[in-house]
């Protein structure tokens, strides 16, 4: 029992959950609107896309390092697909497959440079991001376009509508949340119960040991970036369908808040650490902060300041924790010797 509580207290997720509860209480006391049904549904709706992106961030950070290309891959691909759908009358499933293929291709470029040349993943993904940006805005003009006919059905797919007695406001839950849940279930099963999943953690934790243990480090790493490209595209399509239009500009710069979220959730940038639950909690906390600032009467201009403080604070805590655990394991090693 004692050991269990100790383990619980040592986990990042515990603190994030605690912060979420405290913050929720504060917002509830000040505004009285936090636990209104519509607010909760709005919050759930707000985390869908970022939670999907958070999967990309998690996979990249756990196995290799930063990936900042997913928003622009998503933006460019969604835009291309919407354009294609406008001129042709392909069924939605074919369009989605094409989109996934484009996403995978972008992921291949990332993976190729990172695996073959061992370049810093931040710089490689920044470059692909810039290339996607150039294609989306330079070659394709990058204006706002409406959801094409093929995706109209998905775009209007609401699971349920709620109306709160407290605020009198309604909120709709979009069907995309099922896609998010599905992706998380798949990710959970793969990361937890397959060789590939365990390899992803192993190569991030200690690449040399992983190689000696017989893991195909390069293949796993390449695969991670290809899958990242595809997950990014799914997130991008969901975002565009939820907004009922696509403008690549809205995707630009979306990586910061996602990275902030997963770092809060306990993903270590040095690799090998990070959980799906942490990702979800981190995303939820950040969405809560940005959604609820207006509820408690703080100007929306303060949003970036808060996000910045959260990144710096969260990263500092996890860095200090990592240092401490390193020290502890060193001392343990000394005692053993």
């Amino acid at each position, binding site marked *: 029992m004692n050991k269990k509580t100790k383990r619980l207290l040592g986990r990042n997720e515990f603190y994030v959950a605690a912060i979420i509860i405290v913050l929720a209480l504060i917002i509830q006391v000040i505004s009285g609107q936090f636990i209104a049904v519509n607010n909760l549904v709005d919050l759930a709706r707000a985390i869908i896309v970022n939670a999907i992106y958070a999967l990309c961030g998690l996979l990249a950070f756990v196995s290799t390092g930063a990936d900042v290309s997913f928003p622009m891959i998503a933006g460019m691909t969604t835009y291309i697909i919407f354009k294609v759908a406008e001129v042709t009358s392909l069924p939605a499933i074919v369009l989605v497959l094409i989109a996934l293929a484009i996403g995978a291709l972008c992921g291949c470029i990332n993976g190729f440079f990172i695996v073959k040349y061992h370049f810093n993943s931040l710089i490689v993904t920044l470059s692909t991001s810039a290339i996607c940006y150039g294609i989306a805005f330079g070659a394709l003009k990058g204006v706002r376009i409406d959801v094409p006919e093929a995706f109209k059905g998905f775009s209007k797919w609401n699971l349920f509508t709620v109306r709160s007695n407290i605020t009198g406001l309604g909120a709709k839950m979009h069907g995309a949340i099922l896609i998010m849940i599905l992706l998380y279930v798949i990710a959970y099963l793969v990361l937890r119960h397959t060789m590939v999943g365990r390899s992803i953690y192993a190569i991030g934790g200690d690449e040399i040991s992983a190689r000696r243990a017989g893991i195909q480090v390069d293949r796993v790493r390449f695969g991670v970036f290809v899958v990242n490209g595809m997950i990014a595209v799914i997130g991008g399509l969901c975002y565009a369908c939820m907004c009922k239009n696509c403008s690549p500009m809205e995707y630009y710069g979306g990586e910061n808040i996602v990275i902030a979220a997963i770092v809060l959730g306990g993903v270590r940038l040095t690799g090998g650490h990070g959980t799906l639950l942490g990702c979800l909690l981190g995303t939820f906390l950040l969405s809560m902060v940005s959604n609820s600032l207006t509820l408690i009467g703080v100007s929306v201009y303060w949003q970036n300041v808060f996000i910045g403080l959260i990144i710096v604070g969260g990263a*500092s805590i996890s860095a200090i924790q990592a240092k401490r655990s390193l020290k502890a394991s060193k001392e343990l090693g000394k005692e053993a010797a």
Partner: protein
Amino acid sequence: MTTVKKLKINSDFLRMLVILVVFIVAATITSGSNFFSVVSFQTMAKQLTEYGLMSIALSMAMITGGIDLSTVYIANMCGAIASLTISAIAPEGQFIGILFACILAIAIGLCCGALNGFLVSVVGVPPMLATLGTYELFSGITIVLSNGQSIQVIPQFTVFATLEVLGIPLPFIVFVIMAVIFSILLGKTAFGRRVHLVGVNPKAARFAGINNEKTIIMAYTLGGFLCAVAGLISLSRVSSVKADFGSSYVMMTILIAVLGGCNPAGGWGEIPGVATAVLVLQVISQWLTAVPWINGYYRQALYGILLLGFMTYKFYRDKGTQRR
């Protein structure tokens, strides 16, 4: 060891110079005689100063084995603070008020850099994450200060950017002076040696008696200083400042640092190479503006391709030298 290193510096620097000359010639031929006019030189010289200074700041962070994504936002924040201070204490453009505002902005730039350095070295946050966090923080502070609008500066302040000495714009002179100072600082002094050693091998640096934390904090603080100067110059040139001004510079500064011979893994890199790379990029960018069918957005894509291509080229070149 020293001779090898010297050769490497020179080769990076020389290669960039050759590329620069080739590009200028190519650009002059393809875009007609108006490319190499005095006016076009003056616009180029004015524009490059801002991201040139930021590139030097980023290069320093990169040499210590880190990266600095917050450069642009430190510059914007310092610009905003300077602008607000000037309107508050010297609305008529009194010299002493402007001077005070500039000193204040530079002091704040130093503090921002020191904060980055502190997070990276003492707290141990990975540099990419630390500067990503501070980048959100600084841009947030700028948004709060400016209420999300762009801040105008009094016209007297914009005089600075239009001044010329023998036809050379003053901002460019500032850039050259800074480049020379930092070349000497990183290439010839004990501090520069420490910065390089910390980047090559932090453990060895520690055993050699170097205070890694102090060195890294110093490097980032000096970077903050350069960003503040860049912010003041851009405030003077554009006559206004906005929280997200120049966000494409982030990509550009990284490209410049890598082109100039910095190794993103730390340890390698000299300022003369970086400074020449700044000139190369400005020539490329100016040349692209002269070509009508290439719009501004392609530039980003081109920078991305250039960065990947150049890193690949260097990978093969280094492989060759290692074998020998």
